C-alpha cells in the first residue's frame, strides 16, 4: 500500500507559484463576517449527503460484527442467509476477492478485511447485500458463526504486564518508546525552587459525528464511483485503488457534503471497500451505512492516556525542567497515543524529557480526533502550570507570560513565523475580566465560584501539495475547482471569498466544484486544521493567474504595457489615463476564448521557520460543594490562527471547539466491561456528549487577528483543532480555584467530585 502523504519523510511539494504574492494590504471581501455560501442548501435540505443518495436498482448492505472482545472465527455458515428473500450477495473471508490486507504497520499488514482472528468487539465477520435494509438485517441474523473465545484485555496497565493475553504476536506494546530529550532534567530539577508532580488520566472519547459513516458504490464496467462520508476524497481513492488493485484513474470518490467527522473520517473504513466488492459482485449499486451503535465500536476514538508530569520552577517564574511519562492505548491495531509535543514546545524550558509508550488492548483502533493528543496533554500540562503558579505565588496568566518562546524548542530552535501566544493571554484576560474573576472567593449558597485559564499550541501548520483551478467565463461568472472537502467548517465560503477578493466577482457568481476525484485536483484530506492554510494560498494563486491573463488581454486591447493596467470593478484601466479602459465583458481576448483558466499551487512553507497556531481559553465555573455539580458559567477563547478570513466561521470553530472540550472534560467516556471486554455505553444515551444545557450561553471568541505573512500568501494558520485543546484544562483549573480540589481524572462531574468534596470535608 502506498504511504499516505502525511507519512512521507520529505514534505511533498507542488510547483512554486510564478510570482511570490505580496500579502493583502487592505481587503474588501476577506475578513468580512459573511454567511456561508452553501447555507441555503444545508438548511433547506437540498444539499445531497451520501446518505441521501438513492440510485436506481440500489441494494442495501449491512455488516455482521464479532460480539466478542477477542475470538477466533472457526466457521461461518451463510447457507440460510443466502437463501433468504431479497438477499443478493453474502461476503465472507472465504471469498478470495475479500481477502484484502488491512491495518498496516511499516512492516506490512496486520489483518485483513474479514480476518478470522477478531481482536475487538465489532470486527467484521461477513456482509450482506439485499433489496431492502430490513432484508439485509434479517440475513445477518441468519448467519451462524462459531467462535473460539480467547482471553482478552481492555485496560492498558494489564495489557502491558507479562503474561497478558497477546493481541498480536510479539507483544502488546506498540514498537518503541518515543523519547524526546533536551538539556538535563536532573540539573533542571536541582535548580528548581518548587516542584510539582502528578499523574493525570483522561478517558477514551468517541467522535460521534451527527452523520454516521457510510458509502454508496457503483460500477460502470471497470470504473468505480463511490459517494462517501469522508474528510478526504483523494485519501479514499488511493485506499480503494490499492485494495481493489485499480488504477487511480478508474476510481472516482465524491464527498461534497458531510455531516461531521472530527478525524474519524480522515481515512478509509472497511465498509467502503465492502460496499464496492458487493456492488461488483451483484452488478448493482450498493449503499452501506453503519448504525450509530457500530460507529461507537469501529471507526475510531481518542485514546485514554495516563500522564505523569513533573515540573520545576524558580520563584521568578523560570521553568527549570519538565518530565512527562505518558502511556496510551491505541486499541487492537496500529496507532499512536502520544501527547507530548506541547510539554516540549509550548513554554520556554531548558530541560525536558518526554517518554511515551503505547500499547494494544482489545478495543477499536484509535483515530485522529480533533487535535489528537493535544487536549490530553493540556489536561496534564495546564493543570501543572496552574499548580506551579500557585507554588511561587504568581497569577496563572502572569506566570505563563514569563515563559513564552519565540522559537520552537522542539524543532531545533527555529523561530516561529508568528506567535500570538502573548496576545492570546493578555487580550483574552482583559476581555474575560480575569483579575475581577480571580479576585476574592465568592460563594452563592452551596455554590462556589472560580476562574481558570489554559493555553495551547497546535502542531500541524499545513502546506503543499494543493492544486486549484479557477475558470473565468465570458459573462464574468467564475468556477472554483478544488479538491478539498468542506467538512462543515466553511471551507467553501472562505475559498470563494479569496476568489472574490482577487477578481472582484460577487460571491453568488462563483460556483464551487470540490471534493470529487473525477473532476477536481489533488488536495490533502481536510484534517489537521490545515485546509485554509494549505489550500487558500493555492486558490489565491489560481485567481491571480486568471487576473494576470485578463490583464494581459486588456493591455493588448488598450495598447498599454502589462504593468500599466489594473483590474478594478469589472474593468481594466490604464493607470494615469482615465479614458483608456475596457469592461471585462468587452474584452476581446475573453470573447475569443470564452474562458480564461488559472492554475494555482500551494507554495512551499518557509524552511528555516516553524509555524504553529496558539490560543488561550478562560473559564468561570460554580461548583456545588454538597453535590459536586459543576455549572460552567462562561468560556472565552482567544486564538492566534493568523488572519481571520471570516469572523462568523471563525467564531463557529471556537464555540464548537469549546463545546467539544466540555464533553472531553465533563461528561464523555467510553466504558468497557472488564468481564467481557464489551463496550457497555455504545449509544447516544449512555455515552454522554454535552447537551445545550451543558454549554454556557456566555461564550466569547476573541480573535487575535495578525496575518502570518511569512507562512503563506493568505496569512492564515489553522483554528479548528486549537479551539478544543485547552478547554477542559481551563475548566479543571476553574474547578480548583472554586474548591481547592485538583481533579486529575477526566471527566469531572459528581461521580467523582462528590467523593472528593466529602474527603476534603473529612480532612477539614
Amino acid at each position, binding site marked *: 500500500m502506498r504511504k499516505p502523504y502525511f507519512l512521507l519523510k520529505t514534505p511533498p511539494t507542488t510547483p512554486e507559484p510564478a510570482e511570490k504574492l505580496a500579502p493583502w494590504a487592505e481587503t474588501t471581501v476577506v475578513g468580512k463576517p459573511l454567511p456561508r455560501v452553501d447555507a441555503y442548501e444545508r438548511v433547506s435540505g437540498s444539499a445531497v449527503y451520501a446518505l441521501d443518495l438513492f440510485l436506481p436498482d440500489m441494494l442495501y448492505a449491512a455488516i455482521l460484527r464479532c*460480539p466478542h472482545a477477542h475470538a477466533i472465527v472457526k466457521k461461518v455458515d451463510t447457507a440460510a442467509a443466502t437463501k433468504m428473500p431479497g438477499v443478493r450477495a453474502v461476503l465472507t473471508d472465504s471469498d478470495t476477492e475479500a481477502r484484502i490486507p488491512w491495518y498496516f504497520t511499516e512492516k506490512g499488514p496486520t489483518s485483513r478485511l474479514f480476518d478470522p482472528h477478531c481482536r475487538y468487539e465489532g470486527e467484521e465477520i461477513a456482509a450482506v447485500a439485499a433489496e431492502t*435494509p*430490513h432484508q439485509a*438485517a434479517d440475513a445477518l441474523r441468519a448467519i451462524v458463526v462459531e467462535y473460539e473465545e480467547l482471553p482478552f484485555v481492555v485496560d492498558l496497565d494489564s495489557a502491558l504486564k507479562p503474561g497478558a493475553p497477546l493481541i498480536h504476536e510479539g507483544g502488546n506494546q506498540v514498537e518503541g518508546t518515543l523519547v524526546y530529550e533536551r538539556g538535563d532534567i536532573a540539573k533542571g530539577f536541582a535548580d528548581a525552587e518548587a516542584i510539582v508532580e502528578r499523574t493525570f488520566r483522561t478517558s477514551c472519547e468517541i467522535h460521534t459525528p451527527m452523520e454516521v459513516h457510510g458509502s454508496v458504490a457503483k460500477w460502470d464496467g471497470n470504473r468505480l464511483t463511490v459517494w462517501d462520508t469522508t474528510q478526504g476524497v483523494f485519501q479514499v481513492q488511493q485506499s480503494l485503488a490499492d485494495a481493489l488493485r485499480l488504477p487511480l484513474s478508474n476510481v472516482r470518490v465524491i464527498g461534497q457534503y458531510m455531516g461531521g467527522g472530527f478525524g474519524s473520517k480522515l481515512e478509509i473504513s472497511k465498509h467502503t471497500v465492502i460496499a464496492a466488492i458487493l456492488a461488483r459482485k451483484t452488478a448493482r449499486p450498493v449503499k452501506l451505512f453503519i*448504525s450509530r451503535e457500530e460507529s461507537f465500536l469501529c471507526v475510531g476514538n481518542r485514546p485514554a492516556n495516563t500522564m505523569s508530569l513533573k515540573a520545576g520552577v524558580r520563584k521568578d517564574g523560570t521553568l527549570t525542567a519538565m518530565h512527562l511519562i505518558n502511556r496510551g492505548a491505541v486499541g487492537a491495531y496500529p496507532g499512536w497515543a502520544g501527547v507530548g509535543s506541547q510539554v516540549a514546545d509550548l513554554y520556554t524550558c531548558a530541560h525536558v524529557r518526554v517518554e511515551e509508550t503505547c500499547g494494544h488492548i482489545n478495543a477499536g483502533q484509535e483515530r485522529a480526533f480533533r487535535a489528537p493528543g493535544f487536549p490530553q496533554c493540556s489536561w496534564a500540562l495546564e493543570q501543572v502550570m496552574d499548580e506551579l503558579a500557585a507554588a511561587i505565588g504568581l497569577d496563572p496568566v502572569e506566570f505563563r507570560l514569563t515563559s513564552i518562546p519565540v522559537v520552537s524548542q522542539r524543532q531545533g530552535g527555529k523561530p516561529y513565523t508568528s506567535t500570538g501566544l502573548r496576545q492570546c493571554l493578555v487580550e483574552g484576560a482583559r476581555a474575560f475580566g480575569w483579575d475581577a474573576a480571580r479576585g476574592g472567593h465568592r460563594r452563592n449558597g*452551596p455554590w462556589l465560584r472560580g476562574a481558570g485559564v489554559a493555553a495551547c499550541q497546535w502542531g500541524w501548520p499545513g502546506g503543499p501539495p494543493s492544486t486549484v483551478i479557477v475558470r473565468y467565463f465570458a459573462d464574468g461568472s467564475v468556477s472554483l475547482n478544488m479538491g478539498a472537502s468542506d467538512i462543515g467548517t466553511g471551507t467553501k465560503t472562505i475559498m470563494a471569498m479569496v476568489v472574490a477578493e482577487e477578481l472582484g466577482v460577487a460571491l453568488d457568481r462563483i460556483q464551487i466544484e470540490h471534493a470529487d476525484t473525477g473532476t477536481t485536483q489533488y488536495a490533502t484530506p481536510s484534517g489537521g486544521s490545515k485546509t485554509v492554510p494549505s489550500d487558500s494560498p493555492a486558490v489565491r494563486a489560481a485567481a491571480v493567474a486568471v487576473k494576470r491573463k485578463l490583464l494581459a488581454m486588456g493591455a493588448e486591447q488598450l495598447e498599454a504595457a502589462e504593468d500599466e493596467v489594473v483590474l478594478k470593478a469589472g474593468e481594466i484601466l490604464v493607470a494615469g489615463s482615465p479614458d483608456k479602459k475596457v469592461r471585462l465583458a468587452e474584452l476581446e481576448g475573453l470573447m475569443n476564448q470564452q474562458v480564461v483558466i488559472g492554475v494555482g499551487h500551494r507554495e512551499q512553507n518557509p524552511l528555516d521557520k516553524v509555524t504553529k497556531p496558539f490560543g488561550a481559553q478562560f473559564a468561570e465555573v460554580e461548583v*456545588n*460543594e*454538597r*453535590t*459536586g*455539580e459543576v455549572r460552567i458559567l462562561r468560556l472565552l477563547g482567544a486564538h492566534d490562527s493568523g488572519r481571520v478570513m471570516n469572523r462568523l466561521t471563525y467564531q463557529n470553530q471556537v464555540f464548537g471547539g469549546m463545546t467539544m472540550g466540555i464533553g472531553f472534560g*465533563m*461528561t464523555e467516556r467510553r*466504558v*468497557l*466491561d*472488564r*468481564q*467481557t471486554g*464489551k463496550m*457497555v*455505553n*455504545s*449509544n447516544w*444515551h*449512555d455515552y*454522554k456528549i*454535552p*447537551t*445545550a*444545557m*451543558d454549554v454556557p450561553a456566555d461564550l466569547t471568541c476573541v480573535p487575535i487577528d495578525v496575518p502570518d505573512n511569512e507562512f503563506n500568501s493568505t496569512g492564515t494558520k489553522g483554528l479548528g483543532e486549537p479551539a478544543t485543546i485547552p478547554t477542559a484544562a481551563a475548566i479543571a483549573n476553574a474547578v480548583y480555584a472554586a474548591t481547592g480540589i485538583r481533579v486529575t481524572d477526566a471527566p469531572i*462531574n*459528581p*461521580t*467523582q467530585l*462528590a*467523593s472528593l*468534596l*466529602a474527603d476534603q470535608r473529612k480532612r477539614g
Partner: protein
Amino acid sequence: MMGSFSYVRAGSVKQAVAALAHDGARLHAGGTDLLGCLRDRVFDAGSVVSISGIEELGGIAALSGGSVRIGALATLAEIASHPLIRERYPVLAEAAASAASPQLRNQGTIGGNLCQRPRCWYFRGDFICTRKGGSLCYAFDGENRYHCIFGGDGCYIVHPSDAAPALVALDAQVSIAGPGGSRTIAVEDLHILPKQDIRRETSLEAGEIVTEIVVPPPRAGLRSTYRKVRERGSWDFALVSVAIAAVVAAGKVSAARVVLGGVAPKPWRSIAAEAALIGHAIDESAAMRAAAGAVEGAQPLAQNAYKVPLLRGALEEAVMSLARP
C-alpha cells in the same frame, strides 16, 4: 434494527386488555421506552398493542374532595406544566420537568414512566443478565457506576423514574385494569425489589395496564420539592434524586415522606430521614440528620460509593429548600 410485529390499536381499555392476552404482546403508549427496547433487542414483540387512542386514559383534572386525577396517558410535559400540579404538588411538577429531554417529555406518558424498564446498560445491552433469565448480574462485579446502593439482590438496577419518587412522596394511588377487573394500590406498592421477582420491576400481572393515578388532596402546610443530580443538564437519568413532601405546622414538621431515586431498584422510601424531620423545625441540623439517616445501611458497589455523599448533599439541599413555604 427491530424485529417485525403486528400492530393493534385498542379502542378501549377492555380491548387493550384482551389484546394483551396474546403471547408476546407489548403495551404501547408514548412508545419512548418500548421502541428503544425493541430496537436494542432487549426483547421482541409478537404484537404491539397501542392504547394511545383511548381518550378516557388521558387528562389531568381535580376531583371532588380535592384529589387530582392524572390519566395514564398524560404526558410528562403536561404534568410539568399543569397549573393544578404546579400549585399543589411542586415535587411532581419538578420531577416531571427534570425527566429526559423536551422531546421525550412531550411524548412520554406517566403510565409508561412508572412502568419503564431499567436503564442498566447490561440489561439494555448484549448481555443475558439475571433480569433477562441469565445467571449473572454483570453489574455486581462490573461497570456499576450508575447502580444501586440499596435493595440490590442478584440484580443491582436503579429505578429510572423521576415521577415515581414524587408520587410515592405524595402517597398517590394507581389504578390498574386487567383480565380480572380493576384494582387500586398505592404507587408505593407498585414497584418491587429483585428479591421479590428478579424479572419484573412492578407488581403488575400479565395483561394489566395502569389506567390512572390519583394524588390525594394537599394537606395544609404541605411543602414539597424534587432535587435531581445528573451528569449532564438534559436527557440524563438521576445519579441520585430526592423527593420530599413534608407538612409543616406551627414551625415544625408534623408529617413527612422522603423518597429517594437513582439509588435502589425501586423508589426508596427513607423512614430514617422522615423520622429525623418529624417533630423538628426545618433547619440545617435537621437536614444533616435526615441526610445521615438516609444513607444508613447503604451498600455501595466498587464504583458507586460517590452516591453516598452525593445523596447526603442532595438531601440536605432538598430539605433546606423547604425551610420557607
